[in-house]
């Protein structure tokens, strides 16, 4: 194998890179494959401290021994981890969005994300992640005045090493599962948010992720810390251009809410789902977990999942602080040959902790969609409450919808309620809408949007509009 040599050469080249680099649109990337040298390359390229490199290598060692999770209701050919790139980045750092590659901006326009307008009009600070490295961050100064840190995780490693050291891996340990473990070894970028004590973040923080490089796995890592009494709402949105080959996406998101802090995390996920024959599409294996560390803290996850060939994702809450609250609102839509196994975990540790789960699953085409959720009440969670509602809607007779809740209680003073239904769109509803002039497809989209309303209304306004359109788009071709 000649690869190690190549890598070594690249690491050497990297030192030269430090001395003033002229913009070159071609992205540089590490060679295909995964080994210790690649990890050293990533770490060197990012000028990381020694402890982080060690953490990465430790994760990699562990990853090699770990089995892939088998319990999800998904199937795919074995993943060839050696057949993917683990590092690719635009070479120059930009001072402002105006300096960004016009082609990149064009892609954003095509996807209907007019960043600057959106940012100005809606007051959204956009941390644009293009492939793996942050291209530009806006609104940083406004936020700085409040003591809020919103930057890429690479910058945070450089500028706020103490926070990173204290919190990274504290909610999702590197050995949590095979996908999280891989992320810990090779993560390239992502976002970092820190809201200081008593500060309410005045705008929705938002990051648009895009995959735009063939065979580049995305290994984003996001860390959000809300200090005592702080509040933040974070939006993550994904759309990806058409791709023919499967792309692996293994992100990790960690949230920490201290006493009385509130974190709202909203996602619209629309990675390329593969074509109508089930060819291509993203494998989206994500580990998202929030820790309600302090008393009366609250973490709320809202997700609209319409994309990806395979979604494996369970945004969770560990309710450690007394009286803390966790929420999970989810819409998952699958069409054609998509597979989704998604849900949540609510771990009740503290007294009087409360959780609420509203999951809406829609299956169309030949797809399979599963809600899988765990509610666990530990012995100390006196007076804990959980309410879970899972509703599935089937569109067409070749799809499957499944509900697999796990409910474990070790405390008699805890109260758990779970309800689930599976149904189809009624003929009456369809006919009523059609009599009012809607085509069958429009009627289905309208009814499905209504079915999802409880979840959609938890999305921030500008996201909700986009998400409604997505629902209609993702159900195209499912009727008739």
């Amino acid at each position: 194998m000649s690869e190690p040599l190549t890598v070594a050469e690249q690491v050497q080249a990297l030192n030269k890179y430090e001395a003033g680099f002229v913009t070159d649109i071609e992205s540089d990337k590490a060679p295909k494959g995964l080994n210790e040298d690649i990890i050293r390359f990533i770490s060197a390229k990012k000028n990381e401290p020694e402890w982080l490199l060690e953490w990465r290598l430790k994760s990699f060692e562990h990853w090699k021994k770990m089995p892939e999770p088998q319990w999800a209701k998904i199937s795919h050919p074995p993943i060839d981890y050696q057949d993917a790139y683990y590092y690719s980045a635009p070479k120059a750092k930009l001072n402002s969005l105006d300096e960004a590659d016009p082609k990149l901006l064009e892609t954003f326009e095509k996807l209907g994300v007019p960043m600057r307008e959106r940012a100005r009009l809606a007051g959204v600070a956009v941390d644009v992640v293009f492939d793996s490295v942050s291209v530009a961050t806006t609104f940083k100064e406004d936020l700085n005045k409040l003591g809020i840190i919103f930057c890429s995780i690479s910058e945070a490693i450089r500028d706020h090493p103490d926070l990173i050291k204290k919190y990274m891996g504290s909610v999702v340990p590197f050995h949590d599962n095979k996908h999280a473990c891989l992320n810990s070894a090779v993560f390239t970028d992502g976002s970092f948010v820190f809201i200081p004590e008593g500060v309410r973040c005045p705008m929705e923080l938002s990051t648009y992720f895009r995959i735009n490089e063939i065979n580049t796995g995305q290994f984003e890592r996001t860390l959000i810390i809300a200090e005592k009494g702080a509040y933040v709402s974070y939006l993550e949105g994904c759309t990806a251009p058409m791709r023919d080959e499967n792309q692996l996406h293994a992100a990790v998101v960690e949230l920490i809410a201290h006493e009385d802090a509130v974190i709202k995390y909203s996602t619209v996920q629309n990675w390329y789902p593969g074509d109508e024959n089930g060819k291509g599409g993203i494998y989206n294996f994500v580990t998202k977990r929030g820790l309600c560390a302090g008393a009366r803290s609250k973490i709320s996850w809202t997700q609209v999942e319409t994309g990806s060939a395979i979604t494996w994702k369970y945004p969770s809450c560990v309710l450690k602080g007394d009286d803390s609250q966790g929420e999970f609102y989810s819409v998952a839509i699958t069409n054609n040959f998509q597979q989704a196994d998604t849900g949540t975990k609510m771990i009740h540790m503290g007294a009087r902790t409360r959780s609420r789960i509203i999951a809406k699953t829609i299956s169309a085409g030949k797809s399979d969609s599963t809600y899988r959720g765990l509610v666990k009440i530990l012995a100390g969670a006196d007076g804990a409450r959980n309410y879970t509602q899972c509703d599935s809607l089937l569109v067409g007779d070749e799809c499957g919808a499944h509900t697999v809740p796990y409910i474990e209680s070790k405390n008699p003073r805890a109260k758990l309620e779970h309800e689930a239904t599976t149904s189809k769109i009624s003929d009456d509803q369809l006919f009523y809408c059609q009599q009012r002039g809607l085509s069958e497809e429009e009627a289905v989209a309208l009814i499905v949007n209504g079915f999802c309303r409880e979840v959609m209304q938890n999305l921030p306004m500008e996201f909700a509009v986009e998400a409604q359109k997505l629902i209609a788009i993702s159900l195209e071709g499912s009727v008739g």
Partner: protein
Amino acid sequence: MQNLLPKSLPDLDKEHWKYSNVNAALKKLDVALSQPVWEMTGAFEFLHPDIENGVHLSIPKNKQFMRPIELKLTGGEGQHLDTKIVIDVAEGASLKIIERQTGCGAYWKNIKVDINLAANAQLEYYRLCEEDPFCVVTEFLTANLARDARFNAVVVNGCSGFGRNEFKVHLNGAGAYADLSGLALLRGKQHGDTTICVDHIAPHCKSSQFFKTILQESARGVFQGKIHVYKDAQKSDGYQLSNNLLLSPLAEMDVKPELEIYADDVKCSHGTTTGELDETPMFYLRSRGLNEQDARKLLIEAFVGEVLDKMTDETIRALFDERVQLWLK
């Protein structure tokens, strides 16, 4: 010990046995294979001699047998009983069965029950388990229902040390109806697992699962119930409810109600609640002058009563009622 596991024990698939470690429970026992002896009442005329270590009943076409047949198996110290019940009910016939399980000592009963209901056949199946708190019981019931067949089962488990009750119901013919309900009464260090899978294979079938658990001391209860609707099983109606009363801080209840659905024109739902007695009715009763103990007793009786109400036969209900009251005391 491993090699003692007979072939009839269901596949120890990890996900399926997630909450119940049968191997660990068996390791604590010292048992040897013994001859099971079934005591039978009213079964004689339907008995088939073809099963060596079990019972085979065959009910002829259109036979309406109103008197319940009672089958009873008693376990004894050191015994490993591996046995089987086969019940074939021919077209249009109807039957009531009471299966009673008792015993004394540390033993292991591994029981397989195969029920085959032909078109329009009807079976009411009542099981009462009052096992020794040190025994292990693994019971696996399979029911195959043809067109318009009806299967009603009520299972009361005043449980064993470690008990796993599994039901696999196949609704093979259109219009078949399975109505399963049960009550698990657990205390001490008992482990009671009820695992159910109802397969809606044919269209227009209906199924209901209604199970309750009461846990005291450091007991552990498990309820796993699944409704599986096959691709062509349109107009399926599946229902499942699991209510669990946790009465002790050391007890644990794990519930996994599952829907696996591949047909679009279906009506399926499940619900589950876990917790202690509701405060509101408790307060109401006490404000009407009942002391806490009496109020509790009344509410618990009401809780179990909903399951016992599923029994249509008054005599059988009286028997079950009496045994449940004994447990509650």
